[in-house]
């Protein structure tokens, strides 16, 4: 009895060792390039590291770095507040627009009648494979005061704004850009007055919003397209037999079947929109009037320009928390229906299944 036990143990050990040997490269690479940097950054965010030598040699200062921009008021708080406002509007506009547009493109490209499908797929996907830096540079030319966009608007007798130099919020502009009512002007959150929180994205930020929708829709179109192609012809036929028209088929049959993809697209969109950095770095470092400042860029600026390493790292961890919260919220909103009920049931049954398997094995 005990002899077999020992052999068994030895065998499991060997099996484990082989397993570990195979995953070791992956574990090491993930550890060195992902886990350790994250832990180091976490340490920097609670230390007084000044940027010289190893961060491990610096002192622990608790939450001081977090306080410096969350609680203390002053310039760091205001910058953080502005960056959150800017990015929140960016998120609110980009995610729905890019989801609807990419779904629309996917449905169009998926049509049987469409000729030259490959051409359209490539054309729509092209902006996604072009570097953000190149597209941002292109954008600054297109949207300059005398650029192509304004030239086009002029043909329509519209006097275009000086896009990348216009800090006015579009909600304020819709109201005719009135001066702030004193009540909203005085109450502040994160160093930014309520009136400024309600400004909407600035005209400059709108140009970035259009750009994000333009560049990301192609990728998400591919995701939707892949999902659409798994929906069989018989489903459509069944709906046709039931007398559903085109819109009903889309709304009641196709869309529900796309729910998992929709969830993926919105999640990726959420994460992506909270990480805007390249565009801001290339264009104006947050100008005009800091209305395109984002938390990701602010984190870089705090660390590398202002040399407040702890604050830079802390900003990135707050950003991390924001992304997690939004993803969970969004999961709760989009993931709540029959599909997840089914999943929940499966989860509940899992222990039972496991027991059954165990019994069979023994």
């Amino acid at each position: 009895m005990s002899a077999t036990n020992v052999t068994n143990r030895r065998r499991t050990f060997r099996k484990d060792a082989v397993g570990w040997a195979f995953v070791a490269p992956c574990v090491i690479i993930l550890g060195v390039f992902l886990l350790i940097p994250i832990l180091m950054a976490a340490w920097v965010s609670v230390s007084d590291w000044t940027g010289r030598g190893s961060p491990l040699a610096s002192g622990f200062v608790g939450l001081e770095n977090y306080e410096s921009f969350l609680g203390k008021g002053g310039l760091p708080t205001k910058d953080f507040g502005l960056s959150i406002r800017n990015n929140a509007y960016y998120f609110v506009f980009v995610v729905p627009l890019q989801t609807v547009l990419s779904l629309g493109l996917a449905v169009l490209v998926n049509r049987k009648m469409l000729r030259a499908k490959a051409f359209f797929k490539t054309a729509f996907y092209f902006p996604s494979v072009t570097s953000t830096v190149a597209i941002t540079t292109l954008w600054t030319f297109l949207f300059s005061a005398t650029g192509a966009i304004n030239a086009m608007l002029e043909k329509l007798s519209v006097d275009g704004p000086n896009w990348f130099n216009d800090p006015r919020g579009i909600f304020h502009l819709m109201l005719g850009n009135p001066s702030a009512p004193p009540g909203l002007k005085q109450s502040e959150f994160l160093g930014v007055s309520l009136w400024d929180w309600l400004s909407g994205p600035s005209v400059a930020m709108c140009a970035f919003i259009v750009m994000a929708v333009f560049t990301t829709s192609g990728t998400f179109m591919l995701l939707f397209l892949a999902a659409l192609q798994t929906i069989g012809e018989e489903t459509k036929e069944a709906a046709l037999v039931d007398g559903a028209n085109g819109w009903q088929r889309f709304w009641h049959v196709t869309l529900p079947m796309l729910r998992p993809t929709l969830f993926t697209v919105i999640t990726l969109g959420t994460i992506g929109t909270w990480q805007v950095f390249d565009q801001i770095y290339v264009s104006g470092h947050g100008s005009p009037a800091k209305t395109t400042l984002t938390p990701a860029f602010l984190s870089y600026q705090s660390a590398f320009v202002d040399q407040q390493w702890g604050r830079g790292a802390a900003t990135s961890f707050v950003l991390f928390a924001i992304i997690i919260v939004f993803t969970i919220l969004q999961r709760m909103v989009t993931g709540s229906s029959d599909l997840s009920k089914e999943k929940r049931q499966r989860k509940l049954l899992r222990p039972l299944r496991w027991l059954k398997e165990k019994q069979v094995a023994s």
Partner: protein
Amino acid sequence: MKIKLAIAGLSVLALALGGCSDDPSGSPSNPPSATLNTNTISILIGSSGQAETDAVKKAAADWSTLSGIPTEVIVASDLNQEAAQGFASGQPADLLYVSTDSLAGWTANGSLEAYGSKLSNLSDFYPGLREAFTIDGTLIAAPKDFSTLALVINTRLWEEAGLSDADYPTTWEQLESVAAKLTTDGRVGLAFGAELQRVGVFLAQNGGSVVANGTATANSSANVAALTYVQNLVSSGSAAFAADIGAGWGGEALGKELAAMVIEGNWITGAMSSDYSDVAYKAVELPAGVQKGTLQFTNAWGLSADGDNKDNAIKLVEFLTSTDQQLAFAKAFGVMPSVISASDGYRAQFPQMSAFLLGADYAQNLPSATGVAATIVDFNSTLGQLKDSDPKALLDAFQTNLEAALG
């Protein structure tokens, strides 16, 4: 299993940390001789272009031939970031460009070594430039070169408006009147960037500054009056911020003839000759308010405290800031020599640049204490809306932030 994982984790950590601190260039091939330390001196530069890169490489190679010590020039695409990587790893470049904005931080964390007092040509540097790199009475680094701001005028438009050499503005009133004369449909008389780095000249001309003797003085009455003057200029339509007329900076506004006059530094000459060679222009001294005033901008040769050939690196700096070498740099990429001994040679070679060099006598440095750069960025972000703002309110906000930064 857990223990094994922990061991694996620890060894990975040790590996990573070892990589941070070990010296891979530990040079058994170059044993330090008793007489000459021949460790390679690396030089990290943020180059304005190929001309500057080539000039610095050539100068470093020349010095290597003279001294027998190898040098290596590394061109950074993001100087702040690459310098920070070096400082964090304990293996920084031996010498590097240091801007006035980075000086305070890198000095405070011990990355830079103050070597000013060891320079044999110390007294040759312009006093104003030495001041820019002095912290608590110690000169940290040698000024590499510098630039000042002047009034750059499109001579064709100047003549077309019926103006002559006698009309170059020397007072604020004259500036206002020539700007109005030069303003036509689709063109402003005067343009400059919406930033303290340009608008600051008016504060200096009115006897103001944003920091005096370590104290914030941003909202002094002199500054408020100066900013109000700027506001009037901009509101009158005869002056505009570069971005408001669709130009990235003053040079573009002048080159595209969106403005007849701009306030810019001597770097404008490079852009004009390469991008707008058909636009004739002339640089004159800025007009005076209650006094003459302009701003200067400078970079220094920073010496890394962690370098392993510091004494020779200082000798290299002395070579790079020698009179002849400074004139060679001026010729190669348009900077102004930071040493007084080169000023006559510079004036003789570049007579058209004399207005910029004259500014050196009265130019002001922008403050560079820790945290001040961020407050200037914030002030700049409000300047764009100067037309619709209260100058006093903008300066008050700036003052509050400055006080917080200066502590």
